């Protein structure tokens, strides 16, 4: 592997991450905001009304010097990623390598169930996609008082509104477990705690988030685009407060 810098989209199979780590190749998680640049720069390549995560991928790719991009297009990511892979192929002269991650070996989900700031938990889980090491000292589980179901949001600022005792569910938990296509795990939630079911606007997962929020005895469906506006944040605040969750 003659690469120095590689971008990943979604969670490529563990074997690929292991290979990249073995060659000391720097991995850039293109799903996360890495560049302070105007999202409008992506409009020549993707529609404005499109998943903000994938628009972020294109924005990052436009600004980083990459030798290749691994983009997962299996059931652990989404159909849109497949189409974005085609767009990336036409945008750049570097290899755009599509993968299908069907890993089934669970790494466990201790961070999702720990007492820690929710933002911090998400940072640790998203950072974890770049390595393949099982955490040596996983944090202990706490009794949950609230739940967050869904993908890592484009705008992490909404995570600050939750208490430290919020458990993570949905695709983020699959992400920590390194089994992004584990649909059973993705469907899991705790009916005994007030839970926000979150999806990125214009993502196919909005259907599942909304469906589960309706099934949950005390769920709130929420979606947001590039940045979470005041009304999205107010909804979370009011939902937690009116549900009696101690902050």
């Amino acid at each position: 592997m003659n690469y120095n810098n590689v971008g990943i989209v979604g969670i490529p199979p563990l074997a690929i991450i292991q290979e990249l780590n073995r060659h000391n190749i720097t991995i850039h998680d293109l799903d996360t905001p890495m560049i302070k640049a105007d999202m409008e720069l992506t409009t020549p390549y993707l529609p404005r009304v499109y998943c903000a995560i994938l628009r972020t991928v294109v924005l990052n790719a436009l600004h980083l010097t990459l030798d290749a991009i691994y983009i997962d297009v299996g059931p652990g990511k989404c159909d849109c990623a497949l189409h974005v892979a085609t767009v990336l192929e036409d945008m750049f002269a570097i290899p755009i390598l599509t993968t299908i991650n069907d890993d089934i070996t669970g790494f466990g989900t201790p961070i999702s169930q720990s007492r820690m700031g929710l933002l911090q938990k998400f940072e640790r889980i998203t950072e974890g996609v770049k390595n393949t090491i099982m955490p040596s000292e996983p944090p202990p589980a706490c009794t949950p008082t609230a739940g967050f179901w869904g993908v890592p949001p484009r705008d992490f600022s909404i995570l600050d509104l939750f208490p430290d005792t919020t458990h993570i569910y949905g695709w983020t938990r699959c992400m920590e477990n390194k089994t992004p296509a584990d649909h059973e795990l993705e469907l899991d939630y705790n009916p005994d705690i007030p839970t926000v079911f979150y999806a990125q606007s214009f993502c196919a997962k909005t259907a599942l988030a909304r469906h589960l929020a309706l099934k949950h005895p005390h769920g709130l469906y929420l979606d947001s685009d590039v940045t979470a506006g005041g009304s999205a944040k107010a909804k979370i605040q009011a939902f937690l407060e009116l549900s009696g969750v101690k902050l």
Partner: protein
Amino acid sequence: MILGDFGTSYSKFLDLSSARPKPHIIPSKELGTEHRVTIATGHNGKRFTDWYVNELTVLARGGEQLIAEDAFVLLDCGSRDIKFIHYLNGRLNDMGWNSECGASMGFTIELLQRYYDLDYHELPLPVRPFSVTCGVLGMSRIFDAVVSGTPDSEAVARFVMGIAINAYRFAGSPTKLYLSGGLCDNPLFVKSIPCEVIPLGRFVLLKGLEAIASQAGK
């Protein structure tokens, strides 16, 4: 202790330290540094207080004070947004806040009244509404209708009805709807909502702030 609901077009105040607390309203464009309050809510509120409570929480608290039932839907129609809370078995079941597709609803209705010099108390309920999603997009429907010969008053009435139906659907199409905000005083808007409507007036958020102040004092 002064409470303030700082809306986009109007701000409402209640001085709890006065002998007989009575709400008063001023246009928000007249707000100045002298209008700082103890607890505030509303779009403009953060600039005028050290204790801000978000509007959905305050709406819910106001609903709890004013509505005796343990299952209800309360919809607040403001100048720039709409929001609702749905209680079931005495606790929050659902909520929504639409500042995008419900944008500038109340503001546009008031603007049209002035522009066409209309009195909403006198406008009859139209036969059918315009299909509109927000104040901004709905304006073009009015102008198109007027150009094609529809009287101003009828075009505006169809717009108002469309907006009212849109707000009703946003609140989950309940059979009974408690209404909050300045549009409670607009009979055309209230009659256009296709279910039983109970207007609670424009001081529901002040009532919610009162409950929050009282709770904090305990």
